[in-house]
């Protein structure tokens, strides 16, 4: 326990030291270029970040982006998990549906932005559509993979004991497929977070991506950097959240 704490403290020290060097180098370059619009110094950026945080502007936009992501991930899961289960359980169904998915999958969510802009206009629907689309494919594929890797003997054993098909799915297939599903969820969350920034940058009147672009147009670089940092922070927290789900719900598979 104590050694673990010491190790944590040690790596935190290394982290702070490295970031101090990084910030020092940034400060020197900023002083050398002496152009606050191109590259403001670290204290100016910190000041701007504190100002934006105090106005709650940063959190307001972060909340909007985060809300859109939660809605999109929920939608994508509701569509993708049942589809993936059906595809994994029935080879015939998979043969019918899979080519359509494989044809659409290489078209990135971002490539849908112009068409979606035309269909939905600027607003909430556009980023939600793009993010749902982006998260959909990894979740389908992860679910199919999860179902495919279920130990056949478990299903056979359940069947031998006369367990009905529905119960087999809910009690055997889903728990066994869960690790793979949660890994897929992690990819889906990462992809949809990237997509939300792109979608908001181009076609939404709010959200973190919008904030970045708004302040760029005003040439307020410290604010731009604050918003970019917030995008990183939320991205990191979301990833940590899904990893926590992984460990919490599938502790037997999270050891990797």
């Amino acid at each position, binding site marked *: 326990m104590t050694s673990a704490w010491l190790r944590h403290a040690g*790596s935190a020290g*290394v*982290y702070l*030291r*490295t*970031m101090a060097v*990084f910030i020092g180098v940034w400060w020197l370059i900023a002083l050398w270029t002496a152009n606050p*619009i*191109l590259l403001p110094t670290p204290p100016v950026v910190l000041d701007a970040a504190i100002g934006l945080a105090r106005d709650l502007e940063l959190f307001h936009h972060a909340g909007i982006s985060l809300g859109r992501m939660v809605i999109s991930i929920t939608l994508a899961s509701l569509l993708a998990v049942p589809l993936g289960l059906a595809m994994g359980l029935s080879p*015939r169904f998979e*043969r*019918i*549906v*899979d*080519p*359509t998915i494989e*044809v*659409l*999958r*290489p*078209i*990135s969510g*971002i*490539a*849908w*932005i*112009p*068409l979606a*802009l*035309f269909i939905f206009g600027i607003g909430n629907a556009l980023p939600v559509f793009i993010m749902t689309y982006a998260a959909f494919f990894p979740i389908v594929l992860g679910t199919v993979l999860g179902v495919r890797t279920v130990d056949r003997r478990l299903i056979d054993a359940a069947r031998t004991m006369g367990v009905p098909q529905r119960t087999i799915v809910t009690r055997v297939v889903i728990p066994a497929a869960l690790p793979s599903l949660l890994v897929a969820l992690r990819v889906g969350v990462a992809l949809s*977070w*990237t997509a939300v*920034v*792109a979608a908001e*940058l*181009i*076609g939404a009147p709010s959200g*973190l*991506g919008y904030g*970045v*672009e708004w*302040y*760029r*147009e005003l*040439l307020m*670089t410290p604010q*731009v*950097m604050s*918003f*970019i*940092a917030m*995008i*990183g*922070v939320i*991205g*990191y927290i979301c*990833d940590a959240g899904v990893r926590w789900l992984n460990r919490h719900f599938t502790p037997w598979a999270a050891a990797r």
Partner: protein
Amino acid sequence: MARDSTWSRWGTGLVLPLVLLLTWEAIGAMLQSPRTPVPTKIIAAAGVLIASGDLPLAILQSLGRVFGGLMVAVAIALPLGLAMGNSRAVERNVDPVVETFRPIAAIAILPLAILWLGTGTAAAVMIVAYAAFFPLIVNTVAGAKNVHPTLLQAAATMGLSRFTIIRTVVIPAALPSIFVGLRIALAVGWTAIVAAELAVGAKAGGGGSGGIGQMMFIFYAYSIELNRIIVCMIAVGLIALVLDRGLRALMRASMPWVKS
């Protein structure tokens, strides 16, 4: 269960796309609006765009930027990743910077790139380089760390210098992992370039720096040609597929001992 021939397999796979396309065409015909995109008009639009040379040119411009950005990313990530994978001290000290910036999506950097480098090729190359850097470095480090210790010990026993060991033992052993990183980097780079060109088109008022993303934006914002937008989307998907399959084939051909 009877084993299906390849043909009936293909047949089953084609049913759903065909049904969807026919439904789409039928709905489009019922709406009778000249702007509604339908499959037949999309094919015609594709013919026009390819024959005029606009689409191939835009694709080449975007691909050029992707490869430029990839080169920059490889030039930084490969040496750094090898150093991190071989020295615990380097890894401990550099990793915090990598991990701090990794969650920041490449697109989020775009406004800064525009501010620093303008709306031309340089900003687009920077975005691709940024996007490609992280999968490359993570996989290079992982590959360099996973070299079998026996190989390293054998090389050390034979009195090879550290540099020679890296060149003759570590790099060949890490190559499969580096290739995986390259594949991911190419995929995210291609997504990033489309996003960057779209955003530049949207934010710079269509100031023509070209590329397929910008082409799509012009069809959206200025000429409102949905058929052509869909042609571009299909092209984006096809290029992504060709890049991925091409790199995989290259990997299989150059490293036949690796199972993909």
